[in-house]
């Protein structure tokens, strides 16, 4: 009998908390597919190198266990409260606490069983999408092949067990302590927003908004000069905290608006905003919490996309399809060229030498601008590197770049984009270059992609191009063979060429893509994983809260019926109301993000005249676009689900 009752309740309950259940399913899906990334043999065949990815995914998974554990706990207590009357009745009928806890847990168990089954099933499919993204980043063709790894499934079950198990223990303890009186009056709550007696939290709110402003200021400052990471983390924390203040102040503002008759007595406004403030009173911490989660999530997605973007741009920066380096004058690269010739139609190649003055003046100018800011900048070279103008023009020709003319008394620079401003600054002070008593005048600066960011290349961020005759005053540095091929080489061929001889370094687009894709994958996947879980949690908290209150509002909408508000208009009001509750938390996040993103992704530089300017903001904007877009879709889906259920409860149930 009790079992039957329990089963029926579980079914009914499932409809009420469908959004919560979906969120848990999504969590299982994400957990499984990310764990499969770690365990998959296919993926490890693509990534090849030993990586820290498994470690990062485990770290994020543990964070997810804590976050989801908190959510499950929150919702379970919530459900318990909502069903307190029913349980109180059981107690009155003489059913023991133990048995009631048993009923509740049995119901939960069957729901959890469903969640795990659905999640595991969908997760194996979602993994294919994850795999497709990884293949895309490594430029490896994607093939659909089904694989399920026992390890990933077991690990996922272990994490979910931790999430769900802890809440079960807590429920058991909570129910054991309950008494009838408490249960029956559990859901009695006064309504109205009780604007009068609320304690004044305005000073706290103002303080936290102030923190937010400090946070933004720090972010701006950190873009101009390199601040330690801890300061940036602190700034982000301040921003997150300031969200709370935003909500308190907004709430106060709404309440004071509602004091004005002119403002409130206008159509459905009165009803809408009173509903809103009444809900905000109980939901304020939840909304602020959701907002904070979304903020962290959005920052994470922004970072992730930023990394993903860098893969392509770094590959582009290599400029030549493949290049061979040897520290030996007149090195012989012919075995490599013939290998390439056999396998691909070798398109063009050019051999040249790089020289050095054993000085590092130019390098020092650019060094600080390029390092940090996730620039993927790794090199052992710290000397100024020189090239003669004829080699330079031959290489430019290979890259389809226009020729550069200099006269015998001048020189030009070629650098990566961030280097332009500091170099221009330096040249403004000392425009002449001296090589062996001869003076060379500065004659221009170029910044096209020119293989200047890798461990070997045409200088480390900066290259000095001098007239051919100036080479006699410089020392030999490296012999280089730059090659253009018909298509991007597969990684396996690069590996094969590495075995041909010794003392040779190979820089190739393929190799760079592979290495930077790995780095991007390490950052992108854990961050995305975290971001989606965080926003799913935020949406769920909001939805469950909104829907649970919907039941108490059936009467309100019925009264509106009688007062002559049509159903269509009621639906409109509902949509507006839920939209407000749902999207308010996104508002401060969007605002802060629009301020912070360009700072994080763009670069502020000082040009020759000392003017500050922000560069590559456009890229930052694109990232906001994508990040916000992703979230928008995510939120919209949850919103639509919520509004549908809300309407079902408040309108259709009458």
């Amino acid at each position, binding site marked *: 009998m009790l079992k039957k009752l329990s089963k029926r309740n579980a079914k009914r309950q499932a409809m009420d908390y469908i959004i919560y259940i979906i969120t848990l399913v999504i969590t299982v899906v994400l957990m499984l597919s990310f764990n499969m990334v770690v365990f998959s043999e296919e993926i490890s065949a693509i990534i090849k190198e030993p990586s820290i990815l498994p470690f990062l995914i485990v770290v994020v998974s543990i964070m997810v266990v804590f976050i989801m554990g908190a959510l499950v706990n929150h919702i379970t207590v919530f459900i318990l409260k909502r069903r307190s009357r029913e349980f109180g009745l059981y107690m009155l009928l003489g059913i023991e606490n133990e048995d009631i806890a048993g009923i509740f847990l049995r119901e939960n168990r069957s729901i959890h069983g469903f969640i795990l089954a659905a999640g595991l099933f969908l997760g194996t499919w979602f993994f294919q999408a994850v795999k497709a993204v990884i293949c895309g980043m490594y430029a490896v063709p994607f093939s659909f092949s089904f694989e399920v790894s026992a390890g990933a499934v077991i690990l996922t079950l272990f994490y979910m067990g931790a999430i769900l198990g802890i809440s079960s223990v807590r429920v058991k303890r909570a129910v054991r302590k309950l008494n009838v009186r408490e249960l029956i009056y559990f859901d009695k709550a006064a309504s*109205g927003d009780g604007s009068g007696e609320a304690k004044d939290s305005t000073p706290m709110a103002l303080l936290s908004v102030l923190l937010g402003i400090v946070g933004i200021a720090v972010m701006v400052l950190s873009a101009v000069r390199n601040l330690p990471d801890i300061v940036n983390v602190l700034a982000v924390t301040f921003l997150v905290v300031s969200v709370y203040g935003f909500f308190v102040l907004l709430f106060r503002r709404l309440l004071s608006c509602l004091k004005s008759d002119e403002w409130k007595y*206008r*159509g*459905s406004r009165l009803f809408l905003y*009173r509903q809103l403030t009444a809900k905000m009173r109980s939901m304020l911490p939840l909304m602020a919490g959701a907002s904070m989660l979304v903020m962290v999530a959005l920052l994470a997605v922004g970072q992730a996309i930023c990394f993903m973007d860098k893969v392509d741009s770094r590959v582009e920066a290599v400029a030549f399809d493949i290049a061979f380096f040897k520290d030996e004058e007149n090195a012989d690269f012919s075995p490599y060229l013939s290998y390439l010739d056999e396998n691909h139609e070798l398109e063009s190649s050019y051999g040249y030498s790089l020289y050095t003055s054993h000085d590092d003046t130019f390098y020092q100018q650019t060094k600080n601008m390029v390092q940090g800011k996730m620039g993927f900048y790794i090199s052992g070279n710290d000397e100024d590197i020189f090239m003669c103008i004829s080699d330079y023009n031959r290489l430019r020709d290979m890259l389809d770049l226009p020729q550069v003319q200099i006269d015998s008394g001048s020189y030009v620079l070629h650098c990566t984009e961030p280097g332009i401003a500091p170099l221009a600054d330096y040249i403004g002070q000392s425009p002449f270059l001296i090589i062996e008593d001869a003076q060379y005048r500065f004659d221009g600066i170029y910044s096209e992609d020119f293989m200047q960011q890798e461990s070997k290349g045409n200088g480390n961020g900066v290259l000095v191009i001098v007239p051919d005759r100036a080479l006699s005053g410089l020392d030999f540095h490296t012999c280089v063979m730059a090659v253009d091929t018909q298509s991007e080489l597969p990684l396996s061929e690069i590996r094969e060429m590495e075995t041909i001889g010794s003392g040779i370094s190979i820089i190739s687009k393929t190799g760079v893509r592979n290495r930077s894709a790995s780095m991007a994958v390490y950052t992108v996947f854990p961050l995305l994983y975290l971001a989606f879980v965080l926003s799913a949690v935020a949406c769920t908290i909001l939805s469950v809260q909104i829907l649970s209150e919907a039941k108490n509002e059936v009467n309100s909408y019925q009264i509106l019926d009688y007062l002559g508000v049509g159903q269509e208009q009621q639906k409109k009001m509902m949509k507006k109301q839920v939209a407000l509750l749902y999207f308010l938390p996104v508002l401060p996040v969007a605002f802060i993000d629009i301020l912070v993103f360009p700072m994080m992704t763009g670069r502020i530089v000082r040009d020759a005249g000392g003017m500050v300017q922000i560069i590559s903001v456009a890229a930052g904007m694109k990232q906001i676009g994508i990040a916000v877009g992703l979230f928008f879709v995510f939120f919209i889906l949850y919103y639509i689900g919520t509004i549908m259920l809300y309407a079902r409860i408040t309108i259709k149930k009458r």
Partner: protein
Amino acid sequence: MDMVLSVENAEKYYGREPNLKKALDRVDFEVSAGEFVSIMGPSGSGKTTLLNCISTIDTIDAGHIYLGSQDLASLPQQKSARFRQENLGFIFQDFNLLDTLSIEENIALPLAIKDIPAKEIKSTVRSLMQRLGIEDIAAKFPAQVSGGQKQRCACARAFVNKPRLVLADEPTGALDSVSARQLLALLTELNGQEKATVLMVTHDPLSASYGNRVLFLKDGQINKELRRVRQSRVDFYHAILSEVSAFGGAGLC
């Protein structure tokens, strides 16, 4: 006198065969302007159903209901809301007020919905609250006032937009006798002053005696009508009482 409401052979069914339930059975009556009519009958006799059909919330299956010259059957669903806004006022036993709105805002709501200018709303609501003696609780929320005060507020809301017909479903049902009397006195007063016609469902003979006519409903049929003609309220009350006991009094409460 001109007719405010006329119900002609109204029939209403719930469910379908074999569980068909006839909730209203050829109900036929008229209410003229300014009347205060009570409807009495045992539980399940169809009182609420009748009220809901008159209030355009529900529809009848046969017969006609005219409000003024408007035939409710020919009133399209989309227009019924607007029709309620303009012609009807409601008071119920419970779920009368919106918990999230203050007392004053609750009363103002029907006017705000009709897009009346805020200044006008303010003055109308203020003066009505003064007349009903509830201006001191204007800023409170329903959860903070007594049941009697709540019903007076509901009463004010029902009359605030000067409806042609006020429908009340057991407005005193949840009140103690003192509060109930106060409310009924108020209803009578507003009925007189505002020239609003009142149709009230009740199963309390005392409440019914405040009106000038009582209709007795049983199994969906009107089977008796009492009029108060040059009678004191107390006499009318006794007349109702005796009718109720003849009717089978036990079924009434």
